[in-house]
């Protein structure tokens, strides 16, 4: 019998490789923060763009993030303006997504941002399916 990889193993390994790549390539120039249209909505807007990226790196390493970094991570909604703004081709959108996963405790490290999962999320999807599809469609399409 072949041994099966634990659930989510390849995803976790990919994320670890990406984090290593990002931490190695990013020079903390802060350009990604400067162009971000969501920074204005942060609970702790930063005046030092280089420092806020340093805080994001701390989160990626599993250390405590600064309030400014966590505030930025909390409002990232993937505009992607940061991607072409980055002079090092880091893909800051990926950096922020991985930081978000980490800060929410998704990578097995202690959560630093409150997890606001909607307990009805999947049941609501099922309920709307029952309201909108016929019994046959429900059986065949979902």
């Amino acid at each position: 019998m072949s041994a099966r990889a634990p659930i989510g193993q390849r995803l976790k390994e990919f994320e670890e490789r990406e984090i290593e790549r990002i931490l190695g390539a990013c020079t903390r120039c802060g350009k990604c923060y400067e162009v971000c249209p969501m920074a204005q909505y942060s609970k702790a807007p930063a005046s030092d763009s280089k420092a806020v990226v340093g805080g994001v790196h701390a989160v990626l390493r599993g250390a405590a993030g600064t309030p400014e970094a966590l505030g930025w991570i909390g409002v990232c909604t993937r505009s992607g303006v940061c991607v072409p703004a980055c002079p090092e081709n880091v893909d800051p959108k990926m950096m922020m997504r991985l930081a978000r996963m980490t800060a929410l405790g998704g990578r097995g490290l202690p959560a630093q941002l409150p997890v606001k999962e909607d307990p009805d999320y999947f049941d609501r999807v099922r309920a709307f399916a029952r309201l909108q599809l016929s019994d046959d469609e429900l059986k065949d399409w979902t």
Partner: protein
Amino acid sequence: MSEHITFWYGCNVLRHGDIIHACLDILRALGYEPEPVGGVDYCCGTVKDANQTAAGGMATRTVGKLNARAAPVVVWCPSCHSHMHDFMARTNDRHFDMTYVVELLHAKRERLGPLLVRELPMRVFVHQHIGFNDLVPVNRMVPELLRLIPGVEVVEADYVAPGYMCASFAAIPRALEDINNNTARSARAAGADAVVTVFHQCYRELVGLDAAGAIPVYNYIHLIARAMGLAYEDEYKAWKRAGEGAAALIGAERIAKVGIQFYERAILPELKKRPKLQKSDPGS
């Protein structure tokens, strides 16, 4: 012979059965044989940022199910499409070609155009986001598709919202308020008589502008379907407009399918929710 495709519609578009049904008819009219799949069992896992074990499991399961169908996949949901691009396909063995639905409709526009026979005299403002457009240039393609409809005039948009779709702003109410207000204001300033969304996640949010009386709101599929003579009723909009009174439209039999308690706790608040509009907006 028509080409078999898997139409992977996603999860939350199940609020809008009319959009799913219209997409299937449009794809059939373009010569495809679409097999729709979606819902919780085909979730991409993008909502599980706080649990990467679950996200990885869901991604592997869904890629496996789509592989097993052995057909090209046409994707409706921008979240599923970008999650497949950014994570799922990089951590699983994907054996199918994948296209975003706007890309496919745009590529087939010479065939689509002659099917759009009903005139829809309206000036529309296309609600756009900054994100996702780098993966699929929907901000150019959707206006180009809408311009194929006789009578439709697309006004120049001077407002592009941050993020990639509205639903991800649920936890950032100040930003969502700005998006609602800026969209309504820009649409009116441009002389538009309706707002058109690209994604269902934006439609679900902005149809609140319609329900509040600020401006009519549609998804682009609604207009393409109407121009083709497809008459699916937009029940979600009717329920949203009715708010508290939606139960009468849905009917006791359907509500019993989801349970009255669940309906009142988890569905009705969404139908009653209205955007916070600034004083100058008529719907405020």
